[in-house]
C-alpha cells in the first residue's frame, strides 16, 4: 500500500470516526519498499488539494522521512520547487508499506499489514 493511502484511511471502529485521534493512523514497525515510478509533476500538483497536509506531515515524520513544511505549498510554490516535487513523489507514490501495523490513537486498535495489505476487519466485539 502506497503511503498516500494513509491520507484516506481511518480507524474502522464506528465510535472512533468522530474522534480526531482516529486519523491519521500511526504506522508501527513498518517495513517499507520502494518502487521506481516515473515522475509526473502535474499529477502531484493536482493531488495536493486532496491532501490533508497535517496528517501527511505526521505520517511522513513517523515513517522517518525528512520533515515537511508546516504549511502545504500552493500549486505555484510546488511547481517552482523541484526538490519538493521529488520528495513528495518519493514519499507518496514510490514508497509502499509492506509489513507492520497501523494503530488508532483513539482506541488503540492495531491493524496488521501483511504483503502490503492492511486488515481492517474487526473482531466481533468491536463491530
Amino acid at each position, binding site marked *: 500500500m*502506497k503511503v498516500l493511502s494513509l491520507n484516506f484511511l*481511518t480507524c474502522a471502529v464506528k465510535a472512533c470516526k468522530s474522534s480526531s485521534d482516529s486519523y491519521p493512523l500511526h504506522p508501527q514497525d513498518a517495513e517499507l519498499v520502494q518502487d521506481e515510478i516515473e515522475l*509526473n509533476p502535474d499529477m502531484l500538483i493536482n*493531488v495536493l488539494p*486532496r491532501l490533508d497536509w497535517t496528517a501527511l506531515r505526521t505520517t511522513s515524520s513517523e515513517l522517518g522521512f525528512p520533515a515537511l513544511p508546516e504549511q502545504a505549498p500552493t500549486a505555484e510554490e510546488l511547481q517552482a520547487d523541484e526538490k519538493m516535487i521529488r520528495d513528495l513523489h518519493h514519499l507518496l507514490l514510490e514508497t509502499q508499506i509492506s509489513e507492520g501495523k497501523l494503530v488508532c490513537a483513539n482506541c488503540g486498535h492495531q491493524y496488521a499489514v*501483511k*504483503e502490503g*495489505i492492511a*486488515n*481492517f476487519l474487526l473482531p466481533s466485539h468491536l463491530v
Partner: protein
Amino acid sequence: MLPTPDTSHVPYERVYEPAEDSFLLLDTLSSASETQYLHETFSPDASSSSPSPKAIPFVVELGTGSGVVLAFITAHAKTLFGTNQILTAGVDMNAFACRATIKTVEKAQADSVAEAGGNEKPHGLYLGSVMGDLAAPLRNHSVDVLVFNPPYVPTSEMPSRPETFTEDLPSKTSFDDDSYLLSLSYAGGRDGMETTDRLIDALPEILSPRGCAYILLCAQNKPEQVKARIQTFGSEWRAVTVGSSGKTAGWEKLQIVRIWRDISP
C-alpha cells in the same frame, strides 16, 4: 471495445470469478453516456470556464474479488475519465481477493502502457487494496466514485465464519474456508439486500459532495424500491438505472444504478 483485464492468476476456488455481472459493470462504465458523465464531472479540462482545475478523483471499488473491474477502471482511466489523473483503491473482506487484485491491476496497467506505445500513460494511480467491511476503513466524504458489485443473491442466511478460519492470508485453506470466502461474494440474505442496504445507508457519509456510486442490483433486489428509498435521502439525491443486461432472460436480470447528489445550480 477496451480490453478486459487478465485474471488468469486468480484462485477461483476462493475468489469470485468474473461473470456476467462483472462484465455488465465494465460495459456500463465504458458506455458513451457514462464516460460522458465521468468526463464532465471529473476531467480537469472539461469545464474551461472554471478557473481552478478540479481536484483529482478518488475511485474506490468495494468487494473487488478478482480485481477485474478495478483494474479496468485504473488501466483505462484516460478513456473513462478523460484524464489519467485518478486515484484508485480496493476493499475486500477476502485476503486472497486483495492479493489477486494487486496483481490484476499491475498486469492491466502494463498492458495499457504497451498498447499506448510511447504516448502518455493511459492508466491512473492505484494506491492499493485493504481488507475491510464495506467502506469502514475510509475517511468520511472522501470517495468520488464508488463501485460495488454486491453479494446480491437472496439466501436464507448470511455466511458465517468457520471456527478454524483465520483471515490473514493463510498458506493453506480448508474446503470450508474456501466455501465461506466464496459465499461472501454472492450470499445477500433477505432479498439479497442485507449487505447492499448497509452500504446504501452509509452513502451520504461515504461520498464526497460531487461523488457518485455505481451499484449492481438483480431483479430479486426490488430495484425500483431501492431507487425510491434513495430519493428519500433528500431532494438532491438521484438514483437512475444506467446499464442493464435486459437481453438475457435468466432469473438473474441485472442492472447498474448510478446514485449521486444533483447539486448543479
